[in-house]
């Protein structure tokens, strides 16, 4: 049973439509990622759920009750801001305790809880530090602890890793996921980074130009992208809409529409494969594999291979028909 229902959420800013009737569900103790390019409306949707913006149309239901007239400070939703928004005049302890103080808890109880939270985010011993002295990763943990402190019913994270450097991201992304799972509350995460969304979320909603294109588990999304936009956004770039190759694929597979050739489609010659003449453009070494760009019948395709092909050479490449999918438009 879904805990949060967003129904038909629409929002326009100065005539520019940011969200077109969004429907979204978040289940109990589920992490949902809103994935999309910048300007796709994902942050606006998050802010509407938080109560920081009012939608032009649509309802937010939480545990069955309508949130329309409930202001942000009474929703009991936590929000972690992109650049953390730590209060510069308060130290780490005071920042985390901010929401607890508002609940009029006793000082002892607050201290105990702040200490437990600091432990949870691996910042034990940082309580009395000024937030201005912290590194990016430390600030992020404080922000997470602060948004968890008042026991929110839902946690929202706006680009939680965007302000960090590459090396920290993978590590902290998993750590945040583990902490949220430990606390056991539902969470919504906004990101423009596909790998971040796949690593951290249970389900991913792909947004583009104010619409949800597909919402599924990362594995299902990757295996069966609903359309070309989703496919290219999650890094499956070999989308064939028209041209000589398209005609050939239609003829050989007996299917029509838009074709997606998965990057692992290239294989050895064999029975059910479609073999075509190709010219090798370049090989990029990616550590675990080579990313090889080839030209087949005027279309550029990228394949993932174990070993490089001689650049500039002409050869025959066979495609596994099972790894050629057709997409909706």
């Amino acid at each position, binding site marked *: 049973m879904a805990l949060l229902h967003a129904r038909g959420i629409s929002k326009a800013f100065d005539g520019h439509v940011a969200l077109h009737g969004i429907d979204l569900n978040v289940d109990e103790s589920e992490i949902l990622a809103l994935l999309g390019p910048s300007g796709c409306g994902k942050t606006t949707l998050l802010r509407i759920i938080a*109560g920081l913006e009012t939608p032009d149309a649509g309802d937010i239901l939480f545990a069955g009750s309508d949130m329309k007239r409930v*202001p942000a400070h009474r929703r009991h939703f936590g929000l972690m801001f992109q650049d953390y928004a730590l209060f510069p005049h308060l130290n780490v302890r005071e920042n985390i305790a901010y929401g607890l103080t508002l609940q009029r808890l006793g000082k002892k109880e607050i201290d105990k809880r702040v200490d437990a939270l600091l432990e949870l985010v691996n910042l034990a011993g940082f309580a009395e530090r000024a937030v201005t002295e912290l590194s990016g990763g430390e600030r992020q943990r404080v922000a997470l602890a602060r948004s968890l402190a008042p*026991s929110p019913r839902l946690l929202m994270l706006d680009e939680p890793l965007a302000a960090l450097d590459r090396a920290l991201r993978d590590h902290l992304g998993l750590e945040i996921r583990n902490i949220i799972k*430990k*606390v056991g509350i539902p969470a919504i995460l906004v990101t423009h980074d596909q790998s971040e969304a796949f690593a951290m979320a249970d389900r991913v909603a792909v947004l583009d130009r104010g619409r949800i294109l597909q919402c599924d588990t990362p594995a299902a999304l990757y295996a069966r992208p609903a359309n070309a936009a989703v496919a290219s956004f999650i890094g499956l770039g070999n989308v064939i809409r028209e041209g000589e190759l398209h005609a050939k694929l239609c003829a050989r597979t007996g299917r029509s529409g838009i074709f997606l050739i998965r990057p692992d489609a290239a294989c050895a010659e064999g029975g059910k494969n479609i073999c075509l003449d190709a010219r090798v453009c370049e090989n990029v070494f990616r550590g675990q594999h080579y990313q090889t760009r080839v030209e087949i019948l005027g279309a550029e395709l990228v394949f993932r291979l174990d070993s490089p092909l001689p650049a500039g050479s002409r050869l025959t490449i066979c495609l596994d028909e099972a790894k050629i999918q057709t997409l909706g438009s």
Partner: protein
Amino acid sequence: MDLPLDATHGELSMNAARNIPRTWLVLPVALFLAAFYVYPLWEVLSLGLGQAVKDVSTLAPLLSSYYPRVVFFTFWQAVISSILTLGAALPGAYVLARHDFAGKSLFETLVTIPFVLPTVVVAAAFRTLADPDTLLGSLASHLGIFTDGEQQGLYLILAAHVFFNFSLALRIIGSFWARLHPAMTESARMAGATPWQAFRTVTLPLLSPAIAAAGLLVFIFCFSSFGVVLLLGGYRYSTLEVEIYRQAAHVFNLPLAAVLSIIQLLVTWGAMRVQSRFQERCTRPLSPVTNIVPLTRAARTPRLLARGYLTAVSLVLVAPLLSLALESLRPDQAWSLAAYAGLFENPRGSVFHVPPMAAMGNSLLYALAATLMAVPLGLCAATFVHTRSRLARILDPLLMLPMTTSAVTLGFGFIIALDQPPLHLRSSWVLVPIAHALVAFPFVLRTVLPALSAVPAELREAASTLGAGPWKVWASIDLPLLSRATLLGALYSFVISLGEFGATIFIARPHTPTLPMAIYRNLSLPGSQNHAQAMASATLLMVLCALCFLMLERCKKRMWGDF
């Protein structure tokens, strides 16, 4: 996991308000302005215009040759003062904008001190320079400066005006110049322009909005200069402000004073309108580049010129203040502390003459009361202006008007408007701090507003998602982050109140004078004891204001360190 995350949540309220009603905060400010700015000025207007319709004969003096001459003199002394100030400040603006040197911040602090000094203190200081019997005055007369002659008063007035406004012009032009990219003049030079041509054809046109804004502001301040002209101009030189005061307080021709006030208001409001246009153009961001070169690395001739300029400016600015302090220690041309002992005495035992220390006590109390009024008013006004609503944008320039309105006209308006119900305050002591708060609160507004804009909106939103209601957000986020700016505004208010003279001289009761009033009385009375009291109390007031100013500067530095 030991976290009680299953906390029960209370019933959800139906109140969807997320922001404190910021727009309504203008209400107390508007009421205050209506009662103590608009209403008094309205009374002045209706008195002047009413009389013109009823009985023109009381306004007959206007047609004599005297008043046109006063208006003309008021205008051109302000023009000359502005030109002199700009000429003195322009080289300094360049040096400050482009160069770094040892003691730069000390220099900046030093040149700004005059701006916060009370007019009576500056006037008293310049009087000592014009007196050949004083230490520095004899030096000045040897050099042929301020020598006794027909024009002595004029020279003193102009010098005092430049002294006051120098830092204002320096700051406005200097900060603008610092944002002009050096590549602009450099590319003119590369195209074959001489340094002078590059300055004339590129730098000067680019600087013109800042020069115009600074020049007009100096003009407005000099046009409504009161204490300086009253104390230094003698009977030969008189401005509109001084005439308004004489007609209202000495001759009791109130309608004539009202008509003069109207002329005064029209000129300053008009100039203010034009000034704010130029000021707006100055705040447009140019280039964020700051290209500051250490002065030691400049070429020889410009370096020596800059050094010479900085030394000369420092000496000229220190001279009158030093002279005043020296004279306070030399009553009757002999070194002693007698003048300071005299601060506690009332030599003639008159009820209207209090010991300067008592006047000092009054001043401090008034300043405290004025600060307590100006700070909340300024905070409310700043929060309102920060909404940037249409109403806020319309009212913003109007909220600044009291700062540049003639103080004498305000004081005059207070005594004719607030002497009957519903606002029967004529004999109440609160009238003085109210007038001071009126002049001071725009300063609070202007110091708080940038700090308010520097608070990121996400901080308020974060507090809100953590459960803070609108007022709680304001109290726990906005207020603490504004505390330094508020303190800054409070110090400004305090200093402004300490030195306010033009309005105070109308409305303070004679037996509870402020320190500037006591200094003025002592200066206008004959006798060496009065003179010594004036010197000592002016020095005391100078030190007090300078100390407040130094605190202000420290507080300012720490504030910019934070954001």
